[in-house]
C-alpha cells in the first residue's frame, strides 16, 4: 500500500507496479497530485487557472502511472488505523494491517481493512502554525489554506485589508499567485529571523556551503536577500516583525505589531499566516516508528535508511514526510522507496539476473541524483528558520485550538511537574482534540524543550491514537460487516 498520491506516492506506486507488484494507492484528495499539484488535474476546477502550464504537464506526467496495471487508486480515502507485528506468531512474512476509509461514491463508502506486505508512507507535509494572540479570530487562515482555496476553488482575495504574515518560500509563492490572479494584498509582514545555527563540520558542500557561510558571516545580508523575495510587487513590506497581534470582536479588524521602526497598526480583514512546513508524521507516529529531531527544520522526522526504510519493518517513508525536501526530491525518494520495497518483497534471487542488476543500477542512479540535490535543500532550511515562539506568543495565546489550551496553561503544567509533551497533554488536554496535535504538537515539543532546557527528543512528541482522522460512527458500524 502507498499512502499519499503526491509526487512521492505516485513515483513509489509506479515503481512497485513496474516491478510487477499489485499496489493499493490511497489519497485524501479527490484528485491525485498532492498539495503541490492540488487542482492541477481537475479538468473542471479553477486550479487549472492557478497552476502554470508546466506544473499541469508535470502533474499529468506523474499521474500517468495510475494507468499501469496493478495499481488500484482510491481518492477521497484516508487511513484510520494501522497495525504491525502481526506475523510474529504465524512465523510467515511480516504483514501490516491498515484500516482505511474510502469515502467517495455511493456504495463505495466504507471502512475496510487491507493486509499488505509493504507500506510506503508518502503523506507529505503540514503547515507549521504561527502562534500569536488573536490567531483564532475568523478571517485568519494559513497561507497554505489560502493557496488551497485558490487551487481548488479559484477563490482569490480581492478586497481591501488582505495581509500576509510569516516566513518561508511558500509565502513568496502565495503572494505572487494572489497578484497574478488579480487579487490584492495590502501588506506583507516578514516574520523571518536571521538564519540560525552554527556551521556544522562537514554538513555542507560546494555552493551551498558558500552561501551558508555567508549566512553565518552576515546574517542580515542573507535575511535581506530572503526578504527581498517578498517585495517587488508594489506591496508594502514590514521586516523584522514581532509582537504580532490580531484584534477584533467577531472577526479580525486590525493588526498590531512591532518592528525596529516602532509600533504599527494596520486595518485587516483577511490575514494569511505561514511559518514553513513540517513533515506529517501522524501515521509514522501511530505505527510507533522511531523519530529524530531535525534541528534545521525544527521538527521530528522518522528515522529511516537511505531508501526511506524504517529499521526492521516493511515500512518506507518517502517525500516531505521524511523531512521537507520539495516535490522534485520527493519524486526521486518515492521511486527509490518503491524499488527498494519491490526488492524486499521479491528478493533478487527469484528474479532474472539482468533484471536484478538493472534495478540495482537504477537505485544507485537515484541515490546519486538525490545526494546532488541535498545541499541546496539544506541551504533553504538555513535560510528559512522557524519563527521562535516567543517572538509573538503571549501567555494568553492559544496553542491547542481543539481544547483551547494557552501558553499559560502549558507553563502552569510544566511548573506543576509535567516533564514532557505527553505529560502536558494529560495535565492540560493539549493535543487531545479532533486534530490530535497536528496543529499544536510541534509547538508543544519546542515549548517543553525550551522551558525544561532539554532536547526536543527528551521533551518528546504527542502520542497518536487511532483514528488518524475523525471518523463517523456510522462508518465504523458499516465497516464491521466488510
Amino acid at each position: 500500500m502507498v499512502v499519499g498520491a503526491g509526487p512521492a506516492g505516485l513515483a513509489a506506486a509506479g515503481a512497485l507496479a513496474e516491478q510487477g507488484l499489485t499496489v493499493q494507492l490511497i489519497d485524501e484528495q479527490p484528485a491525485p497530485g498532492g498539495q503541490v499539484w492540488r487542482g492541477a488535474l481537475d479538468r473542471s476546477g479553477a486550479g487549472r487557472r492557478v497552476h502554470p502550464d508546466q506544473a499541469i504537464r508535470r502533474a499529468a506526467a506523474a499521474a500517468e502511472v495510475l494507468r499501469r496495471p496493478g495499481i488500484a487508486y482510491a481518492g477521497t480515502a484516508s487511513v484510520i488505523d494501522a497495525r504491525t507485528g502481526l506475523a510474529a506468531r504465524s512465523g510467515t512474512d511480516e504483514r501490516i494491517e491498515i484500516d482505511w476509509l474510502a469515502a467517495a461514491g455511493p456504495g463505495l463508502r466504507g471502512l475496510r481493512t487491507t493486509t499488505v506486505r509493504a507500506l510506503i508512507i508518502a503523506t507529505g507535509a503540514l503547515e507549521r502554525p504561527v502562534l500569536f494572540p488573536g490567531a483564532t479570530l475568523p478571517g485568519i487562515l494559513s497561507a497554505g489554506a489560502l493557496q488551497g482555496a485558490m487551487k481548488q476553488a479559484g477563490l482569490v482575495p480581492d478586497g481591501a485589508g488582505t495581509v500576509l504574515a510569516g516566513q518561508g518560500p511558500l509565502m513568496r509563492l502565495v503572494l505572487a499567485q494572489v497578484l497574478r490572479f488579480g487579487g490584492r494584498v495590502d501588506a506583507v509582514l516578514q516574520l523571518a529571523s536571521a538564519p540560525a545555527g552554527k556551521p556544522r563540520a562537514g554538513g555542507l558542500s560546494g555552493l551551498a556551503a558558500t552561501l551558508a557561510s555567508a549566512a553565518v558571516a552576515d546574517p542580515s545580508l542573507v535575511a535581506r536577500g530572503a526578504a527581498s523575495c517578498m517585495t517587488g510587487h508594489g506591496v508594502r513590506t514590514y521586516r523584522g516583525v514581532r509582537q504580532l497581534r490580531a484584534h477584533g470582536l467577531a472577526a479580525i479588524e486590525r493588526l498590531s505589531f512591532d518592528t525596529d521602526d516602532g509600533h504599527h497598526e494596520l486595518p485587516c480583514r483577511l490575514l494569511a499566516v505561514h511559518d514553513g512546513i513540517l513533515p506529517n508524521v501522524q501515521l509514522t507516529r501511530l505505527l510507533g516508528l522511531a523519530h529524530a529531531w531535525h534541528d534545521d527544520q525544527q521538527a521530528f522526522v522518522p528515522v529511516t535508511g537511505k531508501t526511506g526504510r524504517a529499521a526492521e519493518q516493511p515500512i518506507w517513508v518517502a517525500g516531505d514526510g521524511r523531512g521537507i525536501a520539495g516535490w522534485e526530491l520527493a519524486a526521486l525518494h518515492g521511486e527509490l522507496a518503491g524499488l527498494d520495497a519491490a526488492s524486499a518483497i521479491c528478493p533478487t534471487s527469484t528474479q532474472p539476473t539482468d533484471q536484478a542488476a538493472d534495478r540495482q543500477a537504477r537505485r544507485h542512479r537515484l541515490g546519486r541524483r538525490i545526494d546532488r540535490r541535498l545541499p541546496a535543500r539544506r541551504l533553504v532550511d538555513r535560510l528559512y528558520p522557524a519563527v521562535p515562539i516567543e517572538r509573538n506568543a503571549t501567555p494568553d495565546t492559544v496553542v491547542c485550538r481543539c481544547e483551547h489550551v494557552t501558553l499559560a496553561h502549558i507553563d502552569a503544567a510544566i511548573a506543576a511537574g509535567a516533564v514532557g509533551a505527553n505529560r502536558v497533554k494529560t495535565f492540560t488536554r493539549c493535543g487531545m482534540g479532533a486534530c490530535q496535535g497536528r496543529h499544536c504538537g510541534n509547538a508543544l515539543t519546542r515549548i517543553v524543550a525550551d522551558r525544561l532546557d532539554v532536547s526536543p527528543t527528551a521533551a518528546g512528541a504527542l502520542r497518536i491514537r487511532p483514528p488518524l482522522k475523525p471518523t463517523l460512527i456510522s462508518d465504523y458500524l458499516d465497516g464491521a460487516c466488510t
Partner: protein
Amino acid sequence: MKPTSDLIIVGAGLIGLSCAIAARERGMDVVLIEAGTVGRQASSASAGGVRSLNRHPAEIPLVRAALPLWATLSARLGRDCGFRASGQVRVAEDEIAMAALEARATRVHDLGHRHERLLSSGELANRVPGIAPHCRGALAVEDDGFADPLATVHALREHARRLGVRLIERTRVVGLDDLGQAVVWNAVGPDGPVTYRARHGVNAAGAWGGSLAEMVGDRVPIRTAALQMSVSAPLAHFLAPVLGSEGRKLSLKQTAGGALVIGGGYEGTVGHEASGAAGGRIDPSLLAENLAAAVSLFPQVASGRIVRTWTGLEGMVVDGLPAIGPSGEHPSLVHAFGFSAHGFALVPLIGTLVTDLIEGRASEHDITPLDPRRFAQAGPDRRSHTDSQAERAA
C-alpha cells in the same frame, strides 16, 4: 542508600494516590513508587463512572459510602474533578433484559438496599428524553454519576504533593523482603537499583498487582485486559445520565463539553509499550460493536465522529472483585489492586479503608469478600499465562 519511611505504596494510579493522601493525613511519612508515570494506565483509561448501580453485592456498601465523598472531593482537593451526580441508568432493550433487571432489583432489595429503582418504559422516556422507543424500561440510581478521570488523577497528584507525599516515578519494584518490622523494596530506577525500607507497604499496582503479590507468596489470579475507550467530537447536548444496557457492554455518557465518552469493557489486544500502542491496541471490530450499542439507544449518534480511541491496562481478578486486605504471607503489607474495571467509584473511600487496615483499626465496612487471601486455598501455585503477559506489557 536506604531511604526509610512509615509507608511505601507501589503504584501511583488513582488508588495509590488516594492511599497516599489518606495515610499522609494521618501523619505518616509516605513514599509513592511508580513504575511509569502517575496515572498512566487504567487510571487515565477509566470511563470515569461513579456507579453503585448493578454492582456486585459485596461492593454495594463501599460504593454507597464513597458517593458522598465524591460530592465533596473537588472542594477537599482544591481542584475540580468534574464530578456530576447525573444519575446512572441501565436500559433493557428487550423483554429478556427487562426480566433480568427486575430479578436484579428484587435481589438487591432483599439484601436491604434501596438505591436502585426500576423504571417503566414511560418513566424511562421521561428520564432519558429521546431514547430509542424499543427500550422496555431500566434500572436507575439517581445519585450515581461520573467524574473526569484525568482531572481526578491530577487533583489527587497535586494534593498528594502539597501534603508532602514523596513521589518517585520511573522506578519499578523488582523484589520485596520482610525484615521483621519492616518491608524492604528492591527497585530499579532511572539511575539503577535502589532499595527502600518502610514499616508498612501497600500494593496498589493495578494490573501488575498480581505479580507484586506473588513476590511475597500471595496468589491472586488476575489477568491483564486492555480496555477500549473512545470519545467523539462534541455533539449538541442530549444526554444527562450515564447509560448502560443490560446484556450488552456499554457505558455511554456526554461530558459538559458535549463529547460522548463510550466504553463498557471491550478488550483490545494487550501489546508492547515499545510498539507505540501504549500498552494496548484497539480491536476495530469490537470498537464497532461498542459503538453499535450506543447507536442502538440513540440512532442520531451514528452521525457523530470518533476523534480518539485508547486503551488502558487493567487488572481483572478472576471473580471480578478487587483484592483489598492484608497479605497472607507478609505481616506489614496490604493489598489494594485488581479493581477489575470498576475501581473508579471507590477512589475517595479506598484511602481511608486501606489506612485503617495499615493501622490495624477495625473497618466500618465488611471487606471479607474482597480479602486477597480468598484464593489461598485454591490449590497449588499456578502462575498464570496472563501474569507474564502483564510483565511483557510493562
